[in-house]
């Protein structure tokens, strides 16, 4: 059935943005709690995590942004047959404007040619929206707010890489990801979550790496080899001793999530999406009934 009219979800998108900007997901907060226990008493690392946890609590209570850099809003929208993505995109763009007015988002969309800030978080290809039609009957939306500081230390490698002695295999991937963590030092507001993609082309690889950031910290990679690689990189990145904010310490990363894509015979890319401790992701499910919508947030 082709729907000619679909519900207005603008308010629901505003609420999704508010939740993402002001409430840190519980798995992230739990990981920070455990990290605090690991750090030495009265160390700068422990102090940093203390401040972070207090800030997370205050942001939730006051419904204000966890971080002032509310980043690039990245929407991954899964929708059933019959929904207009053009209509959804318009609603999302309107919603980020309202969320900006309500101070849940900082005006973050800058014209690259004139330097003018659009003021409402919309612009050319801004916010980022990816649509995926699926077989389910409801709409599911994942939202990530990806800050600029950590985006600037995200990076991509082309293997083989002679300098790192990184070949076209998982050992090569390990070497590049550890190098990326080292290169970032404290500039990406760690402790970080690393989204890693192997393969693809330069564009698809970066997108895939960011999509890994939606995964729960405690999920298990269905691919055994990748699951093992995630654990190895997690342990070894934390041995680097860069610590929260680069102050030194035991917690440099909170999670590592790796995925693979098919690639051209000629290319072997490794993309590393470095995400700050404020891994702001939120989700919503929208069931469309005859004349109402049922929305759940997570």
């Amino acid at each position: 059935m082709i729907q000619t009219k679909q519900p207005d979800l603008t308010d629901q998108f505003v609420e999704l943005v508010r939740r993402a900007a002001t409430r840190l997901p519980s798995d992230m907060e739990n990981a920070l709690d455990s990290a605090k226990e690991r750090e030495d008493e009265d160390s700068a690392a422990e102090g940093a995590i203390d401040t972070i946890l207090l800030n997370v609590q205050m942001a939730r209570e006051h419904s204000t942004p966890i971080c002032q850099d509310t980043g690039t809003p990245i929407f991954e929208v899964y929708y059933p047959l019959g929904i207009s993505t053009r209509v959804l995109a318009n609603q999302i763009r309107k919603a980020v404007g309202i969320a900006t007015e309500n101070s849940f988002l900082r005006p973050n969309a800058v014209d690259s040619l004139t330097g003018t800030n659009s003021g409402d978080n919309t612009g050319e290809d801004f916010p980022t929206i990816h649509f995926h039609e699926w077989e389910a009957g409801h709409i599911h939306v994942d939202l990530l707010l990806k800050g600029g500081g950590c985006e600037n230390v995200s990076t991509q490698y082309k293997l083989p890489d002679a300098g790192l002695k990184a070949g076209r295999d998982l050992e090569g991937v390990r070497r590049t990801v550890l190098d990326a963590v080292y290169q970032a030092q404290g500039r990406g507001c760690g402790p970080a979550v690393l989204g890693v993609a192997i393969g693809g082309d330069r564009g698809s690889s970066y997108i895939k790496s960011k999509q890994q950031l939606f995964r729960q910290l405690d999920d298990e990679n269905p691919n055994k080899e990748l699951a093992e690689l995630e654990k190895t990189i997690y342990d070894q990145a934390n041995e680097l001793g860069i610590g929260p904010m680069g102050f030194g310490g035991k917690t440099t990363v909170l999670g590592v999530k790796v995925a693979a894509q098919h690639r051209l015979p000629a290319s072997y890319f490794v993309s590393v999406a470095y995400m700050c401790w404020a891994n702001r992701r939120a989700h919503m499910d929208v069931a469309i009934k005859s004349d109402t919508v049922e929305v759940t947030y997570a």
Partner: protein
Amino acid sequence: MPKLTVPIADDEIRALHVGDTVLLNGIIVTGRDAAHKFMIENYIRKPAVDEEAELYADLKELLNGGVIYHCGPVVKKHDDGTYSFVAAGPTTSIREEVYQPEVIAHFNLKGVIGKGGMGPNTLKACSEQPAVYFHAIGGAATLIARSVKEVVGVYKLEFGVPEAMWVIRVEDFPVVVTMDSHGGSLHDQIMASSAEKLDALLA
């Protein structure tokens, strides 16, 4: 935790060392990419033109013995025209490395607040002035905004809200000294120790 009040005296700066935590108080000014570029191009590398002279005089007074904060805040404008800070964590400082030493020297800055640390030129300027680099906790935006008790004024709002120069009064703003006026840099130390560790892991 020891407190420091802006304007800060030279001997107070010399007494600070890498790793010290401090609560900052007083009037500070936000400035990031556009503001630093503006100050360099309009005041420091050539004399101020007439239409920018008033701001120059204000900044000279505000920044003398003062502190600049690398920050692009979320700001709420109230119906009566006043502003308040909603979220105001630090932004990455290294982008200002090309400008910072000249800004420190020209305005007699005593401190720079930001995150991620800065490079050798700023470290040298810190020794000479003297001045220090205060590291705020990246992302702790709500917490820091609540230490901003008053928005005293704003300059260059045409740069956009994040890039404007906001004059703010802070109370007990928590920071860590990561670059001091004695040549010490926590960032250099961590870079060196993590490089050693990385070499071992990639051996």
